[in-house]
Each structure stands twice: as structure tokens, then as C-alpha cells.
């Protein structure tokens, strides 16, 4: 089932066209990976899925993006959209507060005040991010004291906390060591049964390891979008082949 439909999307930063005529269907309970060389528009597309681009001046979008067949740029409030479509960024960005407060921030924002309920949510989210045991004794400590990998998992827990349907991840492991990377990859594969996951990665091995579908971007266009296995073993497009065989990048 298509969770997200992208139809004829063009996106401009001022004069510069960063996305060119994108069409894509993203399925529920799958991991979709975006790959491509730097500057090709992966992050741009990802961000426009929960309207984080709204904040940048001079951004113009046309075409349609549908979440469960509802136009996210017309028929839904940005704040509600972002609750349903969570995001994890390239650099772990926990807030400079305690671990507990980091996870509780989202639910509090959406009006949950009851302490017991918050406690529950924090525990569940941290469990889902497979880090409850690591941090349960230091919930009141600053999140900035965690290691990079832990911080990133905390950010994932934070994303879970508002109970989203879709989770977007923009190179979530590029700043991490191999072991943390592995943990996060396992986690993603583990949770995909409950979520729709879109991940941007510069690491093709990573895409192969975890994703079901892969999209290859170049200069703002989707060159190829197919099952991961197929795309990496038998790319249809010459450019895709060049890229995945390491001819550039």
C-alpha cells in the first residue's frame, strides 16, 4: 500500500531548481533508501516530506505530495503533519536538557501533561530505540553526555515519542562508529513492521543491507527507483551503474 505519493514535484531554492519532476510511491512497512552523490537533492526531497523546507526562505514547491491520499501542503497543518511524519537528522541533535526531557518534549508539545503518562511514553520510546537499559538509571542526566551513537538513538526515541507513522532519516549513521551504526541498522529493520521508513544514505552498503527499495538521485532527478536488490545487481540506467560501481562519488 502506498503510504506516500509524490506526484510531479519540482522544488526551487530561489532560482535554483533542486528537485526536478519527482514521482515516487513510498510503501508502508518498508524501508526506502535514497542514494546519490552530494548535492543531488536527497535531503531536499526528504525534508519536503514533512515540510521542514517551509522554514527556508525562497523555497517554492509545485506538484503534490500525499500522505494517505491527503495533500500535505494543502489539507494538513504543518504541526500535525510533523507529528505524523517524524525526522532524524544527520548529526545527532539531542536538546541540551536531560534524557528524560528530550523524549518528553514531543508529547508535552502535543498537550500531554500527566506525569505518569509521560513516564510511560519515555520508557516505551526508549525501549523501542533499544536503549532503555543503557539509560534508565541516568534519565535525569544531560543528553549531551551520551556518546554519538547513543545520542542518535535518543533522537530516534524522541521521534518515536510522538507516535509517528512515517520516520525520515537523513544519513543517520554518517557521524557514527561501525558498532553504533550496526545497532541503528538493526533497529530500523526491527521496527519497519510498524512504520514507514525513508532513509538517506551516502553508504551504498548500508542501502543494500537494510532497504527494500532504493532511489538513485542525480542533479535533482530520480534516475532510477526500484527494488534494492534489482537496482544494485542489474541497474537499468548507465549512470546508476557508474555510481554504484564507484566510478564517481
Amino acid at each position, binding site marked *: 500500500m502506498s503510504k506516500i505519493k509524490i506526484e510531479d514535484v519540482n522544488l526551487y531554492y530561489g532560482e535554483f531548481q533542486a528537485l526536478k519532476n519527482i514521482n515516487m510511491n513510498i510503501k508502508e512497512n518498508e524501508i526506502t533508501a535514497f542514494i546519490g552523490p552530494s548535492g543531488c537533492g536527497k535531503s531536499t526531497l526528504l525534508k519536503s516530506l514533512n515540510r521542514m523546507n517551509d522554514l527556508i526562505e525562497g523555497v517554492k514547491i509545485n506538484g503534490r505530495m500525499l500522505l494517505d491520499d491527503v495533500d500535505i501542503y494543502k489539507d494538513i*497543518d504543518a*504541526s*500535525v503533519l510533523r507529528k505524523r511524519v517524524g525526522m532524524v537528522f544527520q548529526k545527532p541533535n539531542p536538546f541540551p536538557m536531560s534524557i528524560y526531557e528530550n523524549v518528553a518534549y514531543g508529547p508535552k508539545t*502535543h*498537550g500531554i501533561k500527566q506525569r505518569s503518562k509521560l513516564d510511560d511514553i519515555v520508557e516505551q520510546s526508549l525501549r523501542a530505540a533499544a536503549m532503555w537499559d543503557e539509560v534508565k538509571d541516568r534519565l535525569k542526566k544531560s543528553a549531551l553526555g551520551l556518546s554519538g551513537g547513543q545520542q542518535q538513538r535518543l533522537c530516534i526515541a524522541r521521534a518515536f515519542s510522538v507516535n509517528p507513522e512515517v520516520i525520515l532519516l537523513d544519513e543517520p549513521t554518517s557521524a557514527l562508529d561501525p558498532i553504533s551504526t550496526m545497532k541503528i541498522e538493526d533497529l530500523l529493520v526491527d521496527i519497519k513492521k510498524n512504520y514507514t521508513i525513508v532513509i538517506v544514505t551516502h553508504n551504498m552498503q548500508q542501502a543494500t543491507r537494510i532497504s527494500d527499495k532504493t532511489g538513485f538521485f542525480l542533479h535533482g532527478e530520480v534516475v532510477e527507483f526500484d527494488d534494492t536488490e534489482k537496482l544494485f545487481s542489474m541497474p537499468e540506467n548507465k549512470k546508476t551503474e557508474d555510481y554504484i560501481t564507484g566510478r564517481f562519488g
Partner: protein
Amino acid sequence: MQSTKANYSEKLMQAVFYLSALISIIAVIAICLFLLLRGIPAIGEIGIMEFILNEKWKPTDYPPSYGILSMIVGSTYVTAGAIAIGVPIGLMCAVFLAKFCPDTVYKIAKPAVNLLAGIPSIVYGFFGMEVIVPFLRENFGGNGFSILSSSIILGIMILPTIISISESSIRSVPLSYEEGSLGLGATKEETVFKIVLPAAKSGVFTSIILGIGRAVGETMAVVMVAGNAVMPLDKIKLLKPIRTLTTNIVTEMSYASGLHEESLIATGVVLFVFIIILNTALSLIKTRDAKN
């Protein structure tokens, strides 16, 4: 539902932020307006040329004479002196703090510089009157109350401004520049003076201009060390007393009435114009900087 309420307070607070932002504009306009309203008629009555280009300030004589040229020149000299003393020392000290100072020394030196900024001007004035003036009298002749003594005091007073702004702009020069220079075999000192300082120059200029602003506007310390004599232009000397625009206002304001009072406010207007000119210079630097 929740979101409409949120939207409402978003809108409200946005308006509050906007209004707060407008207050400084209103303040500047009010200051301009009231100064000009009181100052301009006086300038009109005295005649702008007479006011600015005449060196004779004799408000108590009859007929009185209101010329502030001597004080304009005085302010300029004193400020130039302060820059000549404060900028090299301040800059070197900033370099010291940013690049050479061991951590332990920094822990003392940095708060010291901050404290220097917080000491009230009259304290500097006392210090100047009781230490610097006698020192100059004994070593350089004259009576000590002079352009030089004012320059020294102001030079000290602008140190914190120069140091803290220069220091932070030196610190913000990317380390990669330094690495590049060191990698070519330059010594640390060569690197700092040939690469880092030039790269920090817009911050350094900013600090100098703010320092000039502080020096031009300082009153209470100068009034104690400058001697406040209105000197004809040809008698202005480094070791002779001087009167500046600010000290003119503060010494005579309490006495003045009528045209005299208004001419003092007009002196304030001239001071204001000085500051506007400095600010224009500053914003030119900033825009040039932004272009790079």
C-alpha cells in the same frame, strides 16, 4: 483545535516581538527629535558656520560668542591619542589572550579585562588626576592636565572594548588558516601576524571604531584630567590642556540658561553627528565584510 489556540498565541507573540523590535527605532527617533528641536534653533541663531568654525567660546561675555571649533579639534586630538595608545596595546593583548596565553593565566587575565570594562569612569578620572597627571608633570613638564593625560586615560578605558571584540574575532578565524601557514614552515608568530590578524581585520576595525565611539563620548574621566581650557587652535599642544565636546557640556550645563543652554544641547547634536559618522563607517565595514 489545539492548533488554532497555538496559532493565536503565535500571532500575538509575533506582534509583541515586532513591537519590541520597533522600540529602538522609536528611541533613536525620539533622541534625534528632541535634541534637534532644542539644538537646531540655537545653531540657527548662532549661525552654523559661526558655531562650528569659530574657535572662540565665550558664552558669559557680552556679547557672547559660541564657537566650538576648539572643542571639535580637542575631541579629535584626544580621541586620536587614545587610539594611538589603546589600539596597539589592546590588539597585542587580544592576540595574547587568543593565541599565546596559557590557560592558567587566561583564567585571571580574561576576568581582569572584563572588570576593566566595568569600572566606572569617575574611578578612571580619579586615577588619572592623582597618578597620571602628576607623573606627566614631573616627567614631561607642563602642568600635566593635557591632551596626553586624557589620551592615556581614554587609551586605558578603550582597552576592554578593543580587546574583547578583537579577541573574539581572532578566535573565530578558522584554525585551518593557521594550519596552512604552519604547514608551510612559518613560525607561530609569523602565522598569527601574517595570516590570523589580517583575516580578523574586520573585527579589529569594528573594535577600533567602537573604541573611537567610546573615546569621543567619554565625559566624566576626561573632565578630571583634560584641564578643560578652551584653547585657540594655534595654542593646542600635546602637553597643554584641552576642552572636548563632552566636557564642555558637563561643566557648563548646570550654569547655562537661554541660548547658552541651547548651544550646549547643540554641542550634543554635534557629538551625535560624530557618532552617526562613525556608525556609517562601521556599517560600511560590515557590509563589505558580508560581501566577502
